């Protein structure tokens, strides 16, 4: 699988956020996007997910342009910006409800992903009682639970304690071995640099590869 970002520019109200970006993301690799807040990382992730359209250029998934076809890309699990769940339901019930949309996974698989993100013990707590880190873990869990081929995580380690962050890093390495495309974005270089195979830095509307 391959995602190609071809000559993509994006501007909002005449303010240029990304200018003529060319990137390729391939299966079996972890990609890191780093850059200060507002450098355009999240905008690119939203364009890949189909939530924003490029002002010019195209984004191809195995040569399919979903945006042109007015569709969201298939097989993508994402957490972009802050997680959003139903406050009155427990963590488990929230995932169960989301899983019911596609009915692709069983209750056991929901429990498995909760164990993998270190949230199993708190799965029966109401979401409104979750800490910031627990909310983030649930957001990561919803992105990964249906075994998507493309995983997109924006600031995945936000508010997560070191032990779980390391567990998540190991989990992402395991996911990479399943021949998935994993794209992580963070404004903290250290979060990404040791995990990613390829790192791109976003600055001044442009992107450069730094390893």
């Amino acid at each position, binding site marked *: 699988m391959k995602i190609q970002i071809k000559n993509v520019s994006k501007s909002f109200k005449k303010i240029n956020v990304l200018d003529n970006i060319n990137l390729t993301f391939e299966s079996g690799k972890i990609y890191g996007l780093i850059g200060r807040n507002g450098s355009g990382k999240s905008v690119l992730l939203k364009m890949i997910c*189909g939530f924003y359209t490029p002002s010019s250029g195209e984004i191809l998934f195995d040569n399919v342009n979903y945006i042109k076809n007015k569709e*969201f890309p298939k097989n993508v699990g994402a957490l972009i910006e802050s997680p959003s769940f139903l406050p009155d339901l427990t963590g488990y019930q929230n995932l169960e409800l989301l899983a019911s949309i596609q009915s692709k996974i069983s209750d056991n698989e929901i429990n498995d992903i909760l164990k993998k993100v270190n949230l199993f013990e708190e799965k029966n707590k109401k979401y409104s009682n979750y800490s910031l880190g627990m909310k983030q873990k649930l957001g990561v869990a919803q992105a990964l639970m249906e075994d998507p081929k493309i995983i997109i995580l924006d600031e995945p380690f936000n508010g997560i304690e070191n032990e779980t962050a390391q567990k998540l890093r190991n989990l992402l390495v395991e996911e990479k071995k399943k021949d998935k495309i994993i794209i992580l974005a963070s404004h903290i270089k250290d979060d990404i640099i040791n995990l990613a195979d390829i790192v791109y830095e976003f600055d001044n509307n442009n992107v450069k590869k730094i390893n």
Partner: protein
Amino acid sequence: MKYILLNDLSFFRKKFLKKFILYCIALIGSFNVLKLTNGYMNFDIFYNTIGINYSNDLGSIEKLLCIFNILFYFYLSLELFTKELKNGVENIFLRINTKKFIINKLISISIITILINIIIYILFLYLFIINKILISNILIVFLKNIIYVLTLQFSIIIVYMFSKNNKCILFLLMLFIFMFNNRILINIINTKIIYLILVLIFILWFIVMYFKKNYFNLFEK
């Protein structure tokens, strides 16, 4: 469907319930003012209170109530419609196609609107029962009212979708309502239900088609 409906009900309970209670209090207060002004209590006063008995002969309180009711339903539908577009978009839109989403969303808005109207009608019917006033033809009025309110709500959703391309459209619509209100406010009691249903079906079809083709404009800030 389950996800969208539960999400909307949760939103309604957390963020809209107090506003709905205030709306009901305002309706009952207005109803009592109209009752005192007229010196009697009948169903016309109730219909005027909920803004479905419009005519050019109405007083300014009744006309204001028509506008007030419309604005309440506009606000409710826009809040419910834009909720998923603002937060946690990846939760839902990477799991469901746009057509299925918009159909489920419209059903969810309809269910909440029907529940709201059931509560309002029960509230007022209770007032009529304790005052020993005979209730008649209420079911057909209720149905017409629901169709009218849904038509209004879905119309403002269309305007909202248009306004994402051109911001001034929303402002122009509000101006239109206030300047030419008798073209928007209609007398539901005297309108044949079949016309209301046909208009509603057309609006539903239009929303589904327009959303499918233009959904991406709605995510952009």
